[in-house]
């Protein structure tokens, strides 16, 4: 083997982009919450995991009802998952974070880690700790490259992941940039106290942020359960960690940053598992986090964090 062929390189880019899309979707939830209330929402990974479970259930349910059209499956699954995780996002914020607003920084952080532990074990009790798997819904793909040599493989699912991610990201960008509520969101992340004085219901904006973040996490969850067809109560932990890394990488608080960070992390990980040992792909993600914090703490697109007294 030549060791380093262009086609293999291309394949890793495709795999990396797929993975990166998922990370980017989850990372947006972290970055938006951090941008507005300056808190790391540790429970976000768990919300994603719940989204993946709901996705798997709805797809299974639809299969039992005899629905086989890919469009129908996708739309119904996304809608139901978003409804459920959105409710979780709202409830968690309402019950575990809102009463703590204005307390010292450590207090909501510990509450968040408590919620994360709680949700993980709660799903484990409800659904069991073992892997749940299903048959892939969408199979097949395209192959490019010479006969007999290394062929680049792009599955339909990978294309679907890319398309859906781009669609939701554009939707979010439009919403934040153009709508009235989006403007309120931006105002809150700029200066929450001032926004409040000017008549913006900041509690509502914060709740909306959690719901939006959770909805995107649900999209990621559904896509992952369709792609890998495997879910267990612990997937949220690592995915949350990686997505947070992506958010920091891109500059925490910045939505385009989270998208970019997710893609960069996905690519890094994909190359690491191709050219290094697979077991060490998580180490690469983490090393990247440390490196970014060392060299550029504000991330790729982040603004410097000005401390106010």
């Amino acid at each position, binding site marked *: 083997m030549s060791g380093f062929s262009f086609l293999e390189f291309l394949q890793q880019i495709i795999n990396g982009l797929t993975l990166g899309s998922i990370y980017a979707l989850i990372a947006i939830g972290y970055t938006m919450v951090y941008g507005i209330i300056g808190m*790391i929402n540790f429970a976000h990974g768990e919300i994603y995991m*719940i989204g993946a*479970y709901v996705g*798997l*259930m709805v797809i*299974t349910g639809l*299969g*039992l009802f005899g629905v086989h059209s890919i469009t129908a499956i996708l739309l119904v699954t996304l809608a139901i998952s978003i*409804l*459920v995780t959105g*409710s*979780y996002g709202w409830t968690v914020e309402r*019950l575990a974070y809102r*009463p*703590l607003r204005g*307390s*010292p*920084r*450590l*207090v*909501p*952080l*510990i*509450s968040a*880690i*408590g*919620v*994360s*532990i*709680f*949700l*993980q*074990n*709660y799903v484990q*009790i*409800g*659904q*069991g700790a073992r892997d*749940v*798997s299903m*048959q892939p819904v969408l199979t097949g793909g395209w192959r490019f490259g010479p006969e007999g040599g290394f062929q680049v493989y792009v599955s339909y699912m990978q294309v679907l992941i890319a398309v859906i991610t781009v669609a939701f990201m554009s939707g979010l960008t439009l919403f934040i940039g153009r709508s009235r509520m989006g403007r309120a969101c931006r105002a809150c992340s700029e200066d929450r106290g001032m926004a409040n004085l000017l008549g913006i219901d900041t509690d509502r904006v914060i709740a909306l942020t959690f719901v939006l973040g959770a909805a995107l996490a649900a999209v990621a969850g559904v896509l992952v359960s369709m792609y890998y067809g495997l879910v267990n109560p612990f997937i949220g*932990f*690592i995915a949350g*960690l990686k997505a*947070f*890394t992506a958010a*920091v990488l891109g500059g925490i608080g910045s939505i385009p940053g989270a998208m970019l960070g997710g893609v960069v992390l996905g690519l890094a990980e994909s190359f690491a598992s191709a050219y290094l040992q697979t*077991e*060490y792909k*998580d180490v690469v*993600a*983490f090393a990247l*986090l*440390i490196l970014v*914090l*060392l060299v550029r*703490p504000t991330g790729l697109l982040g603004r410097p*964090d000005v*401390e106010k*007294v």
Partner: protein
Amino acid sequence: MPRALSDALLAAALTAVLLTPIFGLHIRVDGVNVSLNRTPMPVIVAVVIVFLLRLFQQPLQRLWAKLRAPASWRENALTAALGQTVQQPRYRLALWLLLLAAAMIWPFTASRGAVDVMTLALIYVMLGLGLNIVVGFAGLLVLGYAAFYAVGAYTYAYLAQQYGLSFWWGLPLAGGLAALTGFLLGLPVLRLRGDYLAIVTLGFGEITRLLLNNLNSLTGGPDGIGNIPRPTLFGLEFNRVASEDGTAFHEFFGLDYSGNHGVIFMYLLGLALVLATLFVINRLLRMPLGRAWEALREDETACRSLGLNPTVIKLSALTLSAAFAGFAGAFFAARQGYINPESFTFIESAMVLAIVVLGGMGSQLGVMLAAVAITVLPELAREFNEYRMLAFGLVMVLMMMWRPQGLIPASRPPQKLPEHAEATQ
């Protein structure tokens, strides 16, 4: 009333949406066939309860306010008297001495199993006190404390197995290496806002577990390291038959061999380590360094304006905290005799954090009691083991809401100016 009804209906609907996918439906995998089982009962019960509670929220709140004891009565009750007593330095010392005496006499009267469980509890006391430095005093969240614990345990285990190092050499080395790890990890992260430390240590904990599982030549992989020697008492061993050039404890004192000796010795050794930990931490707290930790927690900007270097102070807290985890790890390895990566997962870190949060951040007595409670209670109620982590998570959230200062809040040692200080002004 219509308002209450619509609110209640909304809450009930929300509950249904939240609970149905988790408890109402189960995915059953049966070979290639995947099916959904429906179990609507728990969801219906929960929905009805939430609906009723929300519907009658106001009457219930009024009832609660009436039934609740008046504030003055609650303030003056036993708790206040007890609090007063504990505040007095004289009684405080007596209380501590009493506790210590009880802790030292107790193992000779208790069963071997109980002493063994208490030894484990002492390890958690040590871990809790160590984590309390960084979470309670310095106000930084560390979510991968088990990683430092693992570094300590594996350092001693590896050195003992490869170079035949005794526990008494392994202990300081384990602490030192763990401290070094904490220092190196904190160096890049602590220049930034404290929040990043939480996620970096979370990642570090996960990476440590991964490395322990994969660096087979160093850590033995998933099998771990076995045959770790137990500590000796000035060279006296607690085995039935002493090694070639050693002496056994029971031979030296002319006693009959009993397994209890070793167990009680481990317990007392643990107690000594806890006391040493307490002593060091309490001395540090009264030094400028310890004062700086707490000052930093309260207001970083003010600290900086007074000329304190926040990075150095945070780094010292993390390094020390890691060192204590390293000591606890070495002791744990010596007690178990074998270690594997399963003992150092995120659950372990979460448990130690729960101990600190439950006991009261910054309160040492609280942390110690919480550590004992959290180790001993699961032993008493094993059938609830499944719900243990669930309860920890819930407790963390509820404590943050109702009593962020913990069950036994930390009390500041009062610092008063001497009487004549005012006169000389």
